[in-house]
């Protein structure tokens, strides 16, 4: 049953092939069997899940079932859940039980989905390997000595290991797409503002965007249709009516113009990854698409601009964690300053502290113009590159990450090497564009992701483009070794 996709589960539940309680129980058992090894969940809410599944079964029986009624999912532990600890992967929030739900969580509840729990992540979503979590690293189901990518490593690993068919995730610089690529799953970061950020703990407000990780583009479309909604509680959320992202899945892609940026296939790209991407592009040609070479001349500046803007925003966003109203507070503070210094010094991990310091530096007197302002100017140049490219092409494709999953600990001591993991994904966050990663083969036995970047609000077409590829290939159906209890 764990092999079923969301689309199959929806059909199975409606056709009474199985109940929501049955599949929920089955997946909870799998989590218990397999997750001690993977560590993809921080919190499993078994009892609540069974209750929700039973309620979903009642609704299914009564015939008033909403879209994802009875479908098991899991939320990245960055989304606030009433009554369920929401840690954001940090010691700072190890004891934080929100009295409110994120809009994304409410949306899934209203759609009848059953949450199995909260998935592991890099602390405050800062990381590309899921090693900065206070709850320990997540292992890649394809090779448990390797990282699953980050920051949504738990969400990606849980889907890849077939512990749950779909998870919510967030992407600030690649945190949905890069782990999707590392784990052979399908992940979509929507246009900035598609998905409400209310109740989604902020890392960098102008870059953060929630999205789904699933096994297929079809499932990602079903999830996004639920996730995306206008929200009056988020000023930056687009006032765009809810959309059926599944509507165009089966459209033909005959004549589709695919932009291939030469900058994304140059130095620093793993040879095998380049080959897989090239093969995927060839496959698209077979499906009737046309490849167009394009240039994104400011690509090389995306990582530097990002590592000014994201830490700057984060440095302010994370000031609220001060040990006063919730979360971690140091023992016996001597005075007010000591309360702040130690609560934050002890409650945050190294990478989070580093980014707060970098952000404080970029905004401090005398450096604002040289760093923050400059980065925001470069950001416009980067966006303009894309705007120009989309005058000529329908979608842009390239690798999601420069290499397949690396070994745990391999890049831990070198933050800059870690930052370059997101070299191909970051620009879309800066520009606010939607981006996707879909499996397109293997390099040295590890999954490789193909990135699809769409124009603003063009998610339906991206999903169509991804779905057509998945109809023609079976990379997304390959099963990771750690999906069976015997895999040790």
């Amino acid at each position, binding site marked *: 049953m764990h092999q079923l996709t969301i689309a199959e589960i929806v059909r199975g539940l409606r056709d009474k092939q199985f109940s929501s309680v049955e599949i929920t129980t089955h997946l909870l058992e799998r989590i218990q069997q397999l997750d001690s090894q993977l560590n993809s969940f921080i919190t499993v809410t078994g009892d609540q899940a069974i209750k929700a599944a039973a309620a979903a079964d009642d609704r299914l029986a009564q015939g008033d079932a909403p879209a994802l009624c009875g479908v098991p999912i899991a939320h990245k532990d960055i989304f606030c859940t009433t009554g369920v600890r929401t840690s954001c992967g940090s010691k700072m929030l190890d004891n934080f039980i929100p009295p409110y739900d994120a809009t994304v969580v409410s949306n899934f509840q209203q759609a009848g989905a059953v949450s199995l729990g909260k998935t592991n992540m890099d602390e405050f979503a800062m990381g590309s390997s899921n090693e900065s979590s206070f709850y320990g690293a997540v292992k890649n189901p394809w090779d448990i000595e390797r990282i699953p990518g980050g920051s949504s490593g738990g969400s990606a690993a849980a889907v890849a290991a077939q512990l749950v068919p779909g998870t919510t995730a967030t992407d600030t610089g690649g945190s949905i797409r890069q782990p999707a690529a590392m784990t052979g799953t399908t992940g979509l970061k929507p246009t900035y503002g598609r998905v409400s950020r209310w109740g989604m703990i902020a890392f960098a407000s102008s870059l953060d965007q929630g999205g789904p990780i699933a096994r297929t583009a079809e499932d990602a479309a079903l999830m996004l249709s639920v996730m995306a909604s206008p929200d009056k509680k988020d000023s930056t959320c687009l006032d765009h009516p809810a959309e059926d992202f599944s509507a165009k899945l089966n459209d033909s892609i005959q004549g589709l113009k695919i932009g291939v940026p030469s900058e994304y296939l140059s130095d620093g790209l793993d040879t095998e990854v380049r080959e897989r991407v090239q093969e995927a592009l060839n496959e698209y040609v077979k499906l009737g698409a046309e490849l167009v070479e394009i240039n994104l001349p400011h690509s090389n500046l995306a990582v530097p601009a990002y590592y000014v803007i994201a830490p700057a925003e984060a440095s302010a966003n994370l000031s609220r964690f001060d040990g*006063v109203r919730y979360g971690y507070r140091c023992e016996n503070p001597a005075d007010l300053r000591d309360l702040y210094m130690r609560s934050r010094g002890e409650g945050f991990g190294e990478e989070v502290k580093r980014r707060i310091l970098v952000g404080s530096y970029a*905004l401090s007197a005398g450096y604002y113009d040289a760093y923050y302002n400059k980065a925001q100017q470069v950001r416009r140049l980067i966006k303009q590159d894309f705007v120009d490219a989309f005058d000529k092409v329908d979608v842009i494709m390239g690798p999601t990450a420069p290499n397949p999953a690396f070994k745990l600990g391999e890049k831990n001591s070198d933050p800059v090497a870690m930052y370059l993991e997101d070299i191909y994904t970051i620009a879309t966050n800066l520009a606010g564009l939607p981006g996707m990663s879909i499996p397109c083969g293997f390099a040295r036995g590890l999954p490789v992701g193909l990135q699809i970047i769409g124009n603003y609000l063009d998610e339906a077409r991206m999903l169509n483009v991804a779905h057509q590829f998945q109809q023609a290939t079976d990379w997304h159906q390959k099963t990771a070794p750690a999906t069976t209890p015997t895999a040790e």
Partner: protein
Amino acid sequence: MEWEVVIGLEVHVQLATQSKIFSGASTAFGAAPNTQACAVDLAMPGTLPVPNEEAFRFAVMFGLAMNAGIGKRSVFERKNYFYPDLPKGYQTTQLEKPIVGEGQIEIHLEDGSSKTVRLHHAHLEEDAGKSLHEAVFDSGHGMSGIDLNRAGTPLIEIVSEPDMRSAAEAVAYLKKIHSIVTYLGISDGDMSQGSLRCDANVSVRLKGEEELGTRAEIKNLNSFRFIEKAIKVEAQRQIDLIEDGGKVIQETRLYDADKNETRSMRSKEVANDYRYFPCPDLLPVVLTDDYIEQIRGELPELPDAKCARFETNYGLSAYDADQLTQERATADYFEQVAAKSGEPKLAANWVMGELAALLNREEKSIADSPVSAEHLAGLIARIKDNTISSKIAKQVFEAMANGDGDADAVIEAKGLKQVSDTGAIEKMVDEVIANASAQVENYRNADPDKRPKMMGFFVGQIMKASKGQANPQMINKILKEKLDALL
């Protein structure tokens, strides 16, 4: 050496919205601690701000009243610093693109002169919470308690140019701001509740100098009296310091009302670097010309316009018109009295005289006046139709203030009606003349020039006999006739 004081003010005005600037929590004053602090105000993880439309409307009204430019595209920024009353660790405020740009207002000084003070800008921001100290706790743990009810209350911060040259000018400016915001109804202006607070930037320089001296900022002044005293004492401190060969340092100071001195707030001297940047949770607020013009069309009459109208329509002196229009409630009260009594000049005298004295004595605002505008108008009507004299009117006024009903009721109950009956007055005059033969004799023998003065004695006696109720003009007329008849 002649010194000149240079003052610029930063005035914080709480806007009278129902809900906070970025959340739907109530702004009502005086609630139990933290009962009006919602998830957004408490900076709970994942919560986001959504700005209040009314705060913008109020800010635009203020800008228009100050003859200022309106920021058609205003941007919120984050001002970063740690303080327990600031839950997010940053204050959401405006810096580069404020809602109100440069403007100017005229202030009126006690000597009757006027002066223009330039507005640098005014911006919207959120208020902080409050720190309460150990007195509130039974246990002696010595900690501070944080109440975040006030956190997120909308403020406009009004920043003047350093155009004021005395404490009196600063007070006049502040009174003008107070007058404008209360006229507009965008703030209750209640300084005792902190609805209007002020920081004063004070420096001194030798008269004739072009360059500004180093300034000190006096924080959190919350009454007109303290502002005046604090500026005076700070200016003197700086002058003494310089004359003794010292140097003023740029710093934040606190006014101690008990000791009447300012002292340095060293705890806030730790190099502040606020790291302002545009708030990424909020988008630029764009206002259209139509929106701004609509608000302009709905502006109420402002103090200067009202003052001019009072002079023209009611024939009041400039001084009286200015006094009556400083507070909207006073102006409204006056207009009611004037309209109902048909006697604007008498109305003005009574509002600025007896009524002001009464309110001052009882420490009440005009809104809580024990004598209603209607009652005062009724009283003035009785003076006008000679039912009572001005002197008796004061007695009636006191009775009305004590809650004895309207003027007619008081006059009736106390029998204060003026005697204008010729026969009755003649009788009283005859009696007084009969009982004062010596004075009558003196009158007869006196030099004719001195006689009018000597009548005072007889008038006094007659008034006494009538308990003050005899019509004074009639007494004079009849008395003169009778005395002259004896010559």
